[in-house]
C-alpha cells in the first residue's frame, strides 16, 4: 500500500505559485529526499502534507485516505510527524516534557481522571513516562532530560525535535533540513541516526536537505524542485548527473557569486 500520495498538488499564494503540480508516491520504508534551491517550494510541500496549508488544487492521500485540508493535529494523529526548518521546540519546558508532549495524542484517559489521578490515568502516565525515557535513551539525550530544551546546543536541539516527532509514533517522518547548522562530523552522525531510526521505529522518511553529501548518501530516491516545478526525480547518481539539476543549482550559484 502506498504510504503517501500527492496528486499534482499546487499551492498558490496570491499571484505566486510556490508549488506547481507536485506529484509523489512514497512506499513504506523508503528514505526519499527533496532538494532544490532556496525558495523552490520545498517547505511548502511539507506544509501542505502536514495540514498547515491546504493545497489550492488537488489532493493528498495518506494510507489511501484523503487528508487534504485536515488540521495539523488530526494529521499528526493519523501518523505523520515532522520537524521544522527553524527548530520549534518548547524552549522553556524540559527535554523530557518536550518528548512527553509528543505522546499526548495517544492519551486515552479523559481530563477528569487526569485531574483526579484515577488509577487508569496514573498507569497511563507512567507508561508514557517510561516510553519517553526510553526514547531519550535511544537518541542519547537521556542525560539532559531535566534541562530546558532551549538551553541545549543546536545539534542536540535538532535531535530532540526528531525524538519528539518519534514520540507521536509516526509512520511517516518529515525532516526539514535536519543537517542545517551541523558540522561535518555531526552531519555524518545524522546520516547513521536517520537510518537507525528508520529501521528501529519502522518509519518512512521524507527529508529536505541542502547538504548534498547527506542527501546523496542517505536517500534512495530524490526529487528536485525549482521554482515550484519538479524538474527531476530519480536515484542519487541520476540526479547528480542530470543537466537540468546542475543548471538549477549553478544558476543559483552564479547569482550568489
Amino acid at each position: 500500500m502506498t504510504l503517501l500520495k500527492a496528486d499534482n498538488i499546487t499551492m498558490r499564494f496570491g499571484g505566486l505559485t510556490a508549488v506547481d503540480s507536485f506529484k509523489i508516491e512514497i512506499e513504506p520504508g523508503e528514505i526519499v529526499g527533496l532538494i532544490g534551491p532556496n525558495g523552490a517550494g520545498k517547505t511548502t510541500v511539507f506544509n501542505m502534507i502536514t495540514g498547515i496549508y491546504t493545497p489550492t488544487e488537488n489532493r493528498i492521500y495518506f494510507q489511501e485516505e484523503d487528508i487534504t485540508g485536515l488540521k495539523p493535529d488530526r494529521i499528526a494523529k493519523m501518523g505523520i510527524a515532522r520537524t521544522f526548518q527553524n527548530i520549534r521546540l518548547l524552549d522553556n519546558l524540559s527535554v523530557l516534557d518536550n518528548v512527553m508532549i509528543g505522546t499526548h495524542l495517544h492519551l486515552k484517559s479523559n481530563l477528569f481522571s487526569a485531574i483526579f489521578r484515577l488509577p487508569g490515568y496514573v498507569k497511563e502516565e507512567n507508561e508514557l513516562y517510561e516510553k519517553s525515557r526510553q526514547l531519550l535513551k535511544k537518541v542519547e539525550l537521556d542525560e539532559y532530560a531535566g534541562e530546558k530544551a532551549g538551553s541545549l546546543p543546536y545539534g542536540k536541539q535538532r535531535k530532540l525535535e526528531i525524538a519528539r516527532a518519534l514520540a507521536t509514533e509516526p509512520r511517516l517522518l518529515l525532516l526539514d533540513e535536519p543537517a542545517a547548522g551541523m558540522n561535518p562530523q555531526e552531519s555524518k552522525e545524522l546520516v547513521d541516526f536517520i537510518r537507525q531510526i528508520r529501521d528501529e521505529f519502522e518509519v518512512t522518511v521524507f527529508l529536505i536537505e541542502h547538504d548534498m553529501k547527506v542527501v546523496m548518501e542517505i536517500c534512495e530516491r530524490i526529487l528536485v524542485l525549482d521554482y515550484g516545478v519538479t524538474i527531476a526525480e530519480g536515484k542519487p547518481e541520476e540526479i547528480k548527473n542530470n543537466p537540468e539539476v546542475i543548471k538549477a543549482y549553478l544558476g543559483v550559484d552564479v547569482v550568489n557569486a
Partner: protein
Amino acid sequence: MTRKKEQLLSFVALIVLAILTYLAQNYLDNYKLRILNLGAIYATLGVSLNLIFGFTGQFSLGHAGFMAIGAYTTALLIMPPMYKEMTFIIEPLIWPLNVLQLPFIVALLLGGLFAAILAILIGLPVLRLKGDYLGIATLGFAEIVRVIANNIPQVTNGALGLKGIPQYTNLWWTMGFAVLTVFIVKRLISSSYGRALMAIRENEIAAEAIGVNLTYHKVMSFTISAFFAGIGGGLLASLLTTIDPRAFMFIMTFNVLIVVVIGGLGSITGTVIAAFLFNFCLEYLRPIEEGFSLGPLSIPEVPGLRMVTFSLLLLVVILFKQNGLMGEIEFTWKGFFRFLSRFKANRPMKGEGM
C-alpha cells in the same frame, strides 16, 4: 522524598490551615476577616486567570465578565424572595427568579457553571485570535456583560444593583475554594493535559504539529478558568452583600491581572502570595490617600493613590523582574526542606566568620 510522604505533609498542612481558619474566623475582628476573605477570593481569581494566561498563554481580559455572571447568579439565587421584592423597585424580578431561593453552595456552583458555559460559547470563536486581538475581544466580552447587566433591570435591577445579599461568605468558604482551585489547577497543569496547555503557550505551531488539538485545549483551559472566576464572583457578592454593574468594570480584571503578574505568570504559589499581599497592601496603604507629609513634602488627599502605587509596582515588575515574585517556581515540599536546611547550614558559618 516519596510521594506518600509528600501527600502526608500536604495533609498535615491542610489541617494546620483548617485550624488557622477556625481561629481566624472566631477570634479576628470583621475588618481583618474581610481582608483575609478578599485575599482568599483573589487567590481563587488569580490562580484561575493564571491557568489561561500564565499556563496556556492566552491573553484573556474577560475575568470581570465571568465574575459578574457568577456574582449575579449567586446573589439572585440566595436572596430571600421578600428581599428581592423590596429591591426590584423599577421593574419586578422575572419568574422563577423572584420565588427561587437555593442553598449557598448550589448557587455558587451554578454561578461557576453558567460562567463556564458562557466561556465555551465565546471561547470557541474568540480563542482563534492571538495575543492582543484576543485580549481586546475578551475585554469587549466583559464589557458587553456589564452593559447587559445595566440594561435588564427585570433580572439585575439595572444600575441600582442588588443590595442586602445574605452574607454567607466566610473564611471557610473562601479558603475552601482557594484550596480547591489551587488543587485542581495544580493537578491539571502537572498532567498530560497541562503539558499540552504549556506546549500551546510555548509554540502553537509545534504543539499542533505533534497532535495537540488547539481548540479543545484552549477552550478547556478557558472554561475551567471561567468556572472559578464565576465562583470567585459569587463569593465576592456574598461577602460585600451589594453588587452593581460598576463593580465589574475593567479595573476588576486589572486587579486580578496585577496579582498574577506580580506573583509570576505560570506560578501558582506566587499568585497566592500576591493575592494576599495585594489585599493587605490595599488596606494598609489606605492612609496614604488621606494625605500625609514626607519631611518637608506634604502630600494632599488623593483618592486612588493606592492604585497608582500598584500600577507603578506593576510597571516596575514588568520592566525589571518580568517573572514576578516567584517566576515559574512552585512551592514543593522538597524545595521547602532544601530551603530550611540551607538556613541551618548557614548559621554556624556566620558564627565562625564573626
